[in-house]
């Protein structure tokens, strides 16, 4: 593979290229359907506003995970392999929001079996016309395996060779 990030190109403090997405009702509903999440707060405006007491339908948890995955692997390229992802949701993402993903590298390491890892702190913020001040909606700690050299492939690791 060409254009492949390798661990020697990654340093603590590096910032990933940010990602900005305009959120529409379709964004929310597509994500809910793709993740087989049929709960009505992710597609039914009246349920979300009148029952849950929020301003609109909102992005569901598994779809947020998928957005984090897309953001991180945009940076690593296809040989980047997610090991662990921990995220905390503080506020919801609604239609009309612009969501922005940003991240910083917090640790670069190689484990005992030679797998290269980068730890990232990812922040998902949102702004909208109604709420123009950026609000942090989710934070996510990610541990992602990155090839240590052009011939390395984290996806080839199995069993004890994979320690996420």
């Amino acid at each position: 593979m060409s254009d492949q990030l390798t661990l020697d190109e990654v340093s603590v403090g590096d910032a990933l290229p940010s990602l900005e997405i305009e959120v529409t009702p379709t964004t929310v509903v597509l994500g809910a359907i793709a993740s087989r999440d049929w709960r009505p707060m992710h597609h039914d405006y009246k349920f979300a506003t009148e029952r849950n007491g929020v301003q609109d339908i909102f992005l569901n948890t598994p779809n947020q995970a998928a957005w984090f995955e897309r953001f991180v692997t945009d940076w690593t390229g296809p040989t980047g392999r997610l090991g662990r992802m921990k995220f905390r949701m503080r506020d919801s993402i609604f239609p009309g929001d612009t969501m922005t993903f940003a991240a910083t590298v917090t640790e670069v390491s190689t484990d005992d079996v030679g797998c290269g890892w980068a730890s990232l702190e990812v922040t998902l913020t949102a702004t909208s016309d109604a709420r123009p001040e950026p609000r942090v909606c989710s934070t996510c700690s990610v541990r992602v395996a990155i090839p240590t050299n052009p011939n390395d492939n984290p996806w080839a690791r199995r069993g004890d060779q994979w320690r996420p």
Partner: protein
Amino acid sequence: MAEENAAESLPSEVTDMVGVPLYHQTADFDVERGYTYNTCAATQNGNPIYWDEAVAEELTGGAIAPPTTISLWMRPHFWQPGAEGEQVALQVHFDLKRIFRLPEAVMTDNTITFHDPVRPGDRISNQQVLKSVSEPKTTKLGTGRFWVIDVEFHNQRDELVGVETYTGFGYVRGAA
């Protein structure tokens, strides 16, 4: 997780659940590529592993599902013959809502650990383990309790493919 376990003050119906594998289930259908495309389309994810078979063959030994789709394979159909009532995926979460009479709930934290890749044709199974339940707490949403649930996922060869840890908050609105 800041929410401490409140084991000593919980009803026995709940303490009996803590630490016990519950609701071992096998998915209703095999892992299939349609959901890979749906997920990638919903997130505008152009990773060639999911779109280019040659890349998938070279890197992952063939097609895989996006790792973050791990939980979707266990979510029930919205409706199916013979099923009554709403079909839910994380039954322990809904059990706790019922036991504590907390009509609303949100997930506040989610940790996913990714193990062997999931591939089209796999049949995924999982089980749920309640790890802890907090004392009553009041947040801007209302008053209720936090709980932590682990979900382990295996494929048909009993290989571990992932572990999810959810923190849920069940609450009564406006009770602050």
